[in-house]
């Protein structure tokens, strides 16, 4: 037996050796930060357990707005994205000529960062941007309308919605496409033999079988929507606060790790609650399959 072989033991042990680096890494970079985040959020520097950082977070003038805008953005953006992605996925699934190309094209935003996407839409919505130029040439306005000004917060928020919709629909799309590909052709053929038309097949066969993927997409997308950050900063600066940007400012401006960590803990609590809620209320027969 060669020495390496002896070190690794038998084949039954090999997979564990192969997993060890990942597990160790994830412990150091997920489990430890997680516990440290709780310590930062719930403990003073001299070791006393406290809720005062959460009180400071909640009583901060921007907290309510941050919570409001984060929720509002999620509630508006996620359903639009799900609907858009479903339409694109079903179009691709018809297999029309050029559908592959269409899929790749729609997946482009997957590679675009939230900061860059924010700047792309900044070029459209800014005072002398492209949208104003279009409105001018259509004769709707005669001087630039300031979409991204503190006087027009709803418009600014609309710009963030547009940018997020454009950037992150692709994530939902690839999950749904993968789900559609798992649907066996047999079911569709059976439905056809039984005389189901296009719409009936969609409603009674495709959508029910797609439910686990829809659920997975909904969970992933909602959690990511809670964390929205650079798009907001690029388009609104600090005029529209969200939870992640508040966490950032509390460190970047005030150097207060405790309150910044409290925001992190709040974000995690929200993510867990929403995942639990989706699993509980959108129950599918094979909950795990849709996710794992």
């Amino acid at each position, binding site marked *: 037996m060669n020495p390496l072989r002896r070190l690794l033991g038998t084949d039954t042990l090999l*997979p564990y050796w*192969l*997993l060890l*680096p*990942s597990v160790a*890494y*994830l412990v150091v*970079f*997920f489990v*430890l*930060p*997680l516990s*440290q*985040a709780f310590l*930062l959020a719930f403990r003073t520097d001299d070791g006393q357990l406290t809720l005062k950082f959460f009180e400071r977070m909640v009583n901060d003038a921007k907290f309510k707005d941050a919570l409001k805008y984060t929720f509002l953005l999620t509630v508006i953006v996620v359903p639009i994205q799900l609907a858009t992605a479903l*339409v694109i996925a079903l*179009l691709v699934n*018809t297999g029309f000529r050029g559908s592959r190309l269409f899929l*790749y*094209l*729609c*997946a*482009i935003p*997957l*590679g*675009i*960062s*939230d*900061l*860059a996407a924010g*700047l*792309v*839409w900044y*070029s459209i919505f800014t005072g002398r941007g492209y949208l104003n*130029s279009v409105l*001018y*040439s259509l004769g709707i306005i005669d001087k*630039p309308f300031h979409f991204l000004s503190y006087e027009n917060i709803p418009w600014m928020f609309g710009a963030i919605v547009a940018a997020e919709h*454009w950037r992150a629909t692709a994530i939902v799309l*690839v*999950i749904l496409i*993968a789900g559609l*590909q*798992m649907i066996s052709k047999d079911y569709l053929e059976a439905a056809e033999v039984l005389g189901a038309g296009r719409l009936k097949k969609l409603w009674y066969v495709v959508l029910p079988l797609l439910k686990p993927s829809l659920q*997975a997409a909904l969970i*992933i997308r909602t*959690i990511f929507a809670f*964390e929205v950050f*650079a798009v907001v900063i690029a388009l609104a600066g600090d005029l529209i606060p969200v939870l*992640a940007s508040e966490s*950032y400012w509390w460190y*970047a401006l005030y150097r207060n790790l405790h309150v*910044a*960590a409290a925001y*992190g803990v709040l*974000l995690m609590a929200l*993510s867990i609650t929403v*995942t639990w809620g989706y699993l509980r209320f959108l129950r599918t027969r094979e909950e795990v399959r849709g*996710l*794992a």
Partner: protein
Amino acid sequence: MSMRRLWGKLLLYGVVAAISLWVLVPLVLIGLASFTPREEIYRWPKPFLPSRFSTETMSFFLGAHGVLPSTLNSIWVALLTIGFTLAIGAPAGYALARFVFRGREAFRLGILITKMFPIPLLAIPLIVTFIKWGIYDTLLGVAFIHTAMALPFAVLITTSIFVGVPRDLEESAMTLGCSRLGAFLRVVLPLALPGLAAAAMFTFVVSWNEVFAAAILTLSNRTLPAQILTSLEVSPVYFKFAGGFFMILPALIFMFFMRRYLLQMWGVAAER
């Protein structure tokens, strides 16, 4: 073709065209904006097509304080991240693809949960840890957290890559006298190489695009997105346009090369 089918086709291609424009037009616009001469960016009304193609906006951006060093930083961080991620993640992917063992599902679930961690929850406490380790404000520190973020995806992608390499070939090599390691190096690795390259590109994109952790964990050694984010308030619009376009460009190129693997990295189709 009946009239109904013709109308159906027209409707299909109409919707497809509309959605394609929705994806493409903003990209074209930011591209045009970054090659518009500076004085025209402020003109009202702004012409869609610049009167002349000009690199001055782009070269102003590239020459602006901190942009070139931070671009180099970004590339270094991304390369380190690729190295760490593949070295740690690919063995796990191989294990998941080739072995059935106790704890397999638990590991997969753990991987899944880590994908959903809020980034502030990771980055904020790591400030303390990194200061203690002496790697706060270093490229190595940023690469460490980017590896943590890319690792779950890399494990899923490499799993599906190794699933795609026929087990028979590996077993034949072993019957013919290769050790498991030899069979892996001589048979599996060459076949998996294109897939691994795609995984590396995906890792690059994750790292190149990440802004929250990079901005939190650095002060002077900024990566490009961190540099742009922290200078947004004081930068002119043409800096923002050129910056946006410059950040998108490499991501677009890499996305083109890894398009075949797009469906596998969210874990839904990993086993196919």
